[in-house]
């Protein structure tokens, strides 16, 4: 039985009387690429923020990386990585300076940091950009770097909030190669997206609609279940069922 890295039971999040997350129940297993899908306003970002410790649930049990989100928030944060929708790196600093900063926060020793940094730059083929300001780099490079920095400290889980926004399909594909590599290393990847083709790349996906999870399974099973050829159509069917 694979290890559970995220356990959510009856998660409810209300903003006043508006229920953003309505009794969510799901588990995520170690090493899987878990896609968190849904239309805008469905509640995915809200749920993800709760998992990252950025906001508190109204009720329900949440365990991330084996730690309770209410009582052990600090430990959760040490064991996760996060890539925000609007990017994670400081534009007016170089790659080295950004890495140095985040290494410090996550307690990576200078020696380890230097080693890992070299490896990272080599893997990405970005040795030439070592002393460039992030702001001067093309968008595709920034995204790759942001992801690499997010997993620099080898977290158990990395949360990606719509990481490939605004980028062409080829660059998006290359980004997903990085995600695969991370998954092979044993890092669980929790990614939200509204690009349905990216859903195909995930091990399992959940589809949220109006605060509830309407479907949770592998892309293959879902396509079979709804009798369609791609995830786009799965999504449309689910959305239309609600109307």
């Amino acid at each position, binding site marked *: 039985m694979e290890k559970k890295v995220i356990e959510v039971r009856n998660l409810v999040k209300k903003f006043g009387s508006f229920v953003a997350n309505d009794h969510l129940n799901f588990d995520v297993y170690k090493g899987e690429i878990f896609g968190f899908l849904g239309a805008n306003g469905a509640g995915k970002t809200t749920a993800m923020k709760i998992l*990252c*410790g*950025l*906001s*508190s649930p109204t009720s329900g049990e949440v365990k991330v990386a084996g730690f309770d989100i209410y009582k052990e928030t*600090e430990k959760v*944060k*040490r064991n*996760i990585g*996060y*890539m*925000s*929708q*609007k*990017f*994670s*790196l*400081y*534009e007016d600093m170089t790659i080295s300076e950004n890495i140095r900063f*985040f290494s410090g*926060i*996550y*307690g990576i020793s200078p020696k380890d940091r230097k080693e890992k940094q070299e490896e990272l730059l080599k893997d990405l083929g970005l040795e030439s950009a070592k002393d460039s300001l992030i702001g001067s780099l093309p968008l595709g490079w920034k995204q790759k770097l942001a992801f690499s920095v997010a997993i620099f400290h080898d977290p158990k889980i990395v*949360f990606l909030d719509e990481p490939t926004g605004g980028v062409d399909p080829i660059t998006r594909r290359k980004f997903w190669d990085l995600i695969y590599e991370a998954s092979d290393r044993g890092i669980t990847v929790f990614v939200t997206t509204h690009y349905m083709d990216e859903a195909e790349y995930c091990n399992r996906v959940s589809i949220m609609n109006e605060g509830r999870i309407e479907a949770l399974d592998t892309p293959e099973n879902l396509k079979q279940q709804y009798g369609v050829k791609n995830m786009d159509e799965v999504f449309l069917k689910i959305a239309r069922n609600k109307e």
Partner: protein
Amino acid sequence: MKQFIGFLRKEFLHIFRDPRTMIIIFGIPVVQLMLFGKVISTDIQNAKIAILDQSHDNTTQRITSKLLSSGYFVLVKEMQVGDDVEEVFRKGIVKMVVNFGPNFEQNLERDGKEDVQLLADASDPNTARILTSYAGGIINDYVKKEKLQNIELPNQIKVEVRMLYNEGLKSVYMFVPGIMAMILMLISAMMTSISISKEKELGTMEVLLASPLKPLQIVLGKVTPYLLLSFINALTIILLGVFVFGVPIKGSFILLMGESFLFILMALSLGILISTVAPNQMVAMFISLLGLMLPTILLSGFIFPIQNMPLPLQIVSNIIPPRWFIVIIRNIMLKGTGIMFIWKETLVLIFMSFTFIALSIKNFKIRLE
């Protein structure tokens, strides 16, 4: 042409339906006019004075009542011989003391001349100048009227003026404290508020919050560079004031630095508070500018004396932090007072700091919910 008119119509609709534009067009000019009309008033009214009358004879009493009925002055203290004159100035109770020597009328009749001494608090040289010239004018007027009645008496009442704390009436003595308050507010409050809003706007704040960094560490980390910079600035301004402009530091330098530190802390906590309500840098900048700079310049007593303002504005000036700091600085630098005389103002600054910090934490927590 028709297209153009159609476009014009659309523009007018935009304007009338946008409350912000309406405020700018109609609200701001009115406010500005009222503010400037009332604040930039160099007219003195009801200035607080004390009178030390060592004679209590006819003449002194007639002069006194003429002074008090002019509308320019309000008597707040009748002093006795042996009172510490310096103290009323140090405490800021009065702006001017009128001193009639003993045997005033007798001396006047015997010698044909006598002096009235006017002591003015020249830490605000403009006000001091105006007060003494008003008083002097009234006294000379009295002499003239008396002379007209008693044509033979060649009496001369001379007015002797002493400007305290600022003999040379240098306006820089007045400006340095005000400029210090303004610059410290600017750097500390505005820069902190922009810095934190910037992280929120760029989305990097989320990443920091999701990391093991504690919120307190983040806030302190944001605040400390500006604390250091502002402190260096405060030091620079004071040193420049002293060595280039000759502004004295009659009081304790350490107390001066201590109070500056407190003020900086207050400004920083205000900056944090602004950043918790501002969604992005633009808004943070606007709030800082409109909410801090303008009131500081106009209502803090920096340039325009507070007691000349109409009562509602005087009340408003109480919630403007620099107003208190300027009193403290002027007291320490120009009057050499110790903590005993400025404890009230110091407490106000401490209270303000706590309030801002408490509100910031509350706002922070609400956002996390």
